[in-house]
């Protein structure tokens, strides 16, 4: 398991030092292979708990906690330096706000001794997340070899990417909340450095915005950790479920239910990391970064850290009003970010908004907090990461080859770049259609939304989920249709192949199909819920179909039928040369310019965000208030 965390970082340092692009390539490929193999080893190892209190280095045993503490302070000082350098005083203020609770926690708080809990926990959820991070991360590393061929600052790019991969794995495994906080802030640093890769004004501004929003989340996180330590006496996630909580002395003026307050603060931190409304602007601004960054950090892995934390916290807040509030915030982001994505023409912004919207859906599922809903959340997490990473990589390749990001310029791409375009169409369909994985997650989410035991605010989730899914169908179909629109008498010219970039695409698209086929296997073996929920996802699986008490569906069967429906016409239909003719166009034989339908005056960013941001801020305030009611 140490391979997962330390070795990528070491590889990154090696890559940084090695001169010349050719050798760097091989270092990166080696790192990718090691990472993949290690993750499969972890999968086969099964769930376990590890206690790593210290690293043995050349006979000396160095305790880890102080190292992490020192690194924490260094990190915060680095943020401080960057904030002052860029004159981003919000960041400076937030760093100071983080330093205060951290110092109080480490040096002044009376801490109870805790023993018996492992510092790293490798349960099913962590293994699944580790698989996603490693496999998709490795593929993206290989992809970026081809992408970054002629770019500058390549060595620092690969260094930060590999350090990030190692850190992300460590975040998944961490059980101690303090260590999780450290890894969390490292991801903020990595994201900050990667967004400003191009070093121009737009990038620097976007990275500063990402910095202060994530630091805001970090403040909430550290305050939450302090409160947890004082309420529960421990910061180990695995122990929290079993302990009783008591309000700390300085908060005794609040009602007894306020033990949920630290979780509200942690949820706040998760919301900033996952860029839900009102924090969405950092993610959409982060699209100025190179596409491998967008694919890795901002769709498949880093933003998943936020909802991962929510899934971890979910068993601890079952049935509280806080949970309902999380569901409402998630659903709100789901619906309105889908609506915003409708109005965009820039493909990366569409993907960014749709990422935020699906993260909102996952957050909504964790807020609904039943066994079925959490199964839906984990399923969505996995399948969405695969499909969204695939789409970002395709968009990156299109941008690399044609220089344009706008979907209007991607019209008829199937003749110019057939492989990428068809893979993109498959990726887009996989995000909305049965039988693919995202649909399975959405279907389970529908089922769990409809299963409420008491009338509460959670009824509004029905509206959110219905409207959100319809809006996403709209913008995905429009984009997919644009890609397929070819002129009748056009010949496709053979495209040159950039294998470093295309191989990951092919692997990922095969992965989409394979994960769908293995859905039932995935449910029965890899999703494990804490016993407090009473249901087991493995009970949901009956033979080849997923059957809950209120409805059933067979992903494999539908996949086979779907493939038949698409492939049989593809193979059977022949277009004889004599039958090809012009489109109707009233007989003029002219090819019209087609476009439009983005409704920017009604649902454009400038129109909607005016209303959505204040509502978002209100919802965050309501979150904190909900914790104390």
């Amino acid at each position: 398991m140490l391979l997962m965390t330390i070795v990528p970082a070491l590889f990154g340092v090696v890559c940084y030092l090695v001169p010349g692009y050719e050798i760097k390539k091989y270092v990166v490929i080696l790192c990718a292979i090691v990472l993949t193999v290690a993750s499969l080893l972890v999968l086969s190892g099964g769930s376990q708990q590890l206690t790593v209190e210290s690293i043995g280095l050349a006979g000396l045993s160095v305790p880890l906690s102080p190292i992490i503490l020192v690194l924490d302070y260094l990190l915060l000082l680095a943020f401080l330096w960057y904030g002052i350098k860029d004159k981003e005083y919000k960041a400076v203020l937030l760093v100071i706000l983080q330093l205060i609770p951290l110092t109080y926690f480490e040096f002044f708080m009376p801490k109870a001794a805790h023993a018996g809990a492992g510092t790293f926990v490798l349960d099913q959820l962590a293994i699944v997340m580790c698989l996603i991070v490693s496999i998709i991360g490795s593929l993206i590393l290989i992809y970026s070899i081809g992408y970054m061929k002629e770019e500058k600052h390549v060595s620092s790019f690969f260094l930060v990417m590999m350090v990030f991969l190692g850190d992300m794995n460590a975040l998944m495994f961490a059980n101690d909340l303090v260590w999780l906080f450290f890894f969390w802030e490292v991801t903020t640093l990595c994201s900050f450095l990667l967004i400003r890769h191009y070093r121009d004004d737009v990038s620097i501004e976007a990275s500063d915005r990402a910095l202060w929003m994530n630091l805001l989340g970090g403040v909430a996180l550290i305050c939450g950790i302090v409160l947890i330590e004082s309420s529960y006496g421990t910061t180990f996630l695995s122990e929290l479920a079993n302990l009783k909580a008591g309000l700390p002395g300085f908060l005794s003026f609040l009602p007894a239910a306020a033990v949920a307050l630290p979780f509200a603060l942690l949820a706040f931190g998760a919301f900033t990391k996952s860029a839900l409304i009102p924090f969405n602007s950092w993610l959409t601004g982060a699209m100025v970064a190179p596409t491998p960054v967008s694919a890795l950090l901002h769709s498949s892995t880093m933003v998943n850290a936020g909802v991962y934390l929510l899934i971890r916290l979910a068993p601890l807040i079952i049935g509280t009003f806080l949970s309902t509030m999380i569901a409402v915030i998630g659903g709100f982001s789901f619906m309105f970010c889908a609506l915003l994505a409708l109005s965009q023409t820039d493909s990366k912004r569409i993907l960014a908004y749709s990422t935020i919207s699906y993260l909102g859906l996952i957050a909504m599922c964790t807020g609904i907090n039943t066994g079925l809903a959490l199964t839906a959340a984990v399923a969505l997490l996995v399948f969405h990461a695969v499909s969204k990473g695939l789409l970002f990589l395709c968009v990156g390749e299109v941008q690399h080859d044609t220089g344009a990001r706008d979907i209007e310029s991607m019209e008829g791409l199937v003749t110019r770049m057939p492989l990428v375009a068809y893979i993109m169409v498959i990726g887009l369909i996989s995000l909305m259609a049965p039988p693919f994985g995202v649909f399975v997650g959405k279907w389970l989410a529908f089922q769990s939304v409809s299963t409420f035991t008491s009338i509460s605010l959670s009824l509004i989730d029905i509206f959110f989920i219905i409207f959100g899914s319809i809006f996403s169908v709209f913008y995905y179909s429009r984009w997919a249709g644009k890609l397929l629109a070819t002129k009748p008498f056009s010949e496709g010219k053979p495209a040159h192949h950039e294998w470093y970039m295309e191989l990951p695409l092919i692997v990922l698209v095969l992965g989409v199909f394979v994960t769908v086929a293995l859905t039932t296997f995935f449910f029965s073996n890899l999703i494990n819920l804490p016993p407090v929920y009473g249901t087991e996802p493995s009970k949901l699986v009956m033979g080849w179909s997923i059957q809950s008490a209120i409805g059933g569906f067979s992903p494999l069967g539908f996949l086979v039928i779907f493939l038949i429906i698409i492939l049989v016409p593809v193979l059977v239909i022949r277009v004889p040369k004599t039958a090809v003719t012009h489109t109707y166009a009233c007989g003029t034989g002219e090819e019209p310019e087609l476009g439009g339908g983005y409704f920017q005056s009604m649902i454009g960013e400038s129109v909607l965000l005016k209303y959505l941001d204040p509502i978002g801020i209100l919802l965050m305030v309501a979150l904190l208030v909900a914790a104390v009611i």
Partner: protein
Amino acid sequence: MADNMLVTYGVPLVLLILSPFIGGILIGIDRKVTARLQNRAGPPIVQPFYDVLKLFGKEDKIVNKTYLVFGSAYFLTVILSLGLLLFRYDLLITTFTFGLSFIFLVLAGYSTRSQFGYVGATRELMQMLTYEPILLFTVFLVRLVTGSFEINSIYNAAQPLLFALPLALLAIFVILPIKARKSPFDIAEAHQEIAQGPETEYSGKFLGLLYLTHFFELFFILWFVGLFYVKDLPVAGFVIPGIAMQVLLMLIAYVFLIVVDNATARLRVDQMLKQVFILGMILLILNLAYIIVTGRWIA
């Protein structure tokens, strides 16, 4: 056991095979009645079948292969969703599969790269935007009342759906013209405006396939309406079987479609969105409140 299998698998199979014929005859009756209302003779009732057979006998004129693939996929997916509905699968999955068929039609419309296909496909997406929320919400309400998404539970419920969800049925009636491509909501195929919309570039056999698909679609939506009353009705001494009540409800929906088609003119897209949303959502929220207040919902 054997005749139980025959009933659960044989009857839906027979219905599935008969459905294009039933759909075609219904469309033919629709054209005849419309003609009579306009004081003219009108085509014979079996006219849709003549149309389909003629289309299958024509040569092809094709723009590219992509839209043919998606048109065939649309046809096959509608048959699949009708099969799921008749064989009593999961209502939510059936609704989503039905929606998938329209996604295929939209992709087909876009991939022809003609201006009529483009506008028609965008309008088809707007229509989907209008009716899918109401349809999904109704499926939710059905699940709340019967306790499960499975269609079997509608048949096993204590009361017919109509008693618990009258306003939802009205909301379905509001969106019926959209799905049957009739006035006032036949916007995607606005003949005088955009020349058949997504289907413009189809000819010959593939147009015949699309034409057949409309027969299946009509049967699907009528059968969906028929699900609202599947119980036997004891009246004045003898019992009307459930299937007759279903057929009666289907006929009521069908007559409603014809009347509304002849009485109204086509609306614009934004008018359709506003009116259908406002009316449909109000009806459904009232129904939801009714269910909650009278406690008829099952967790």
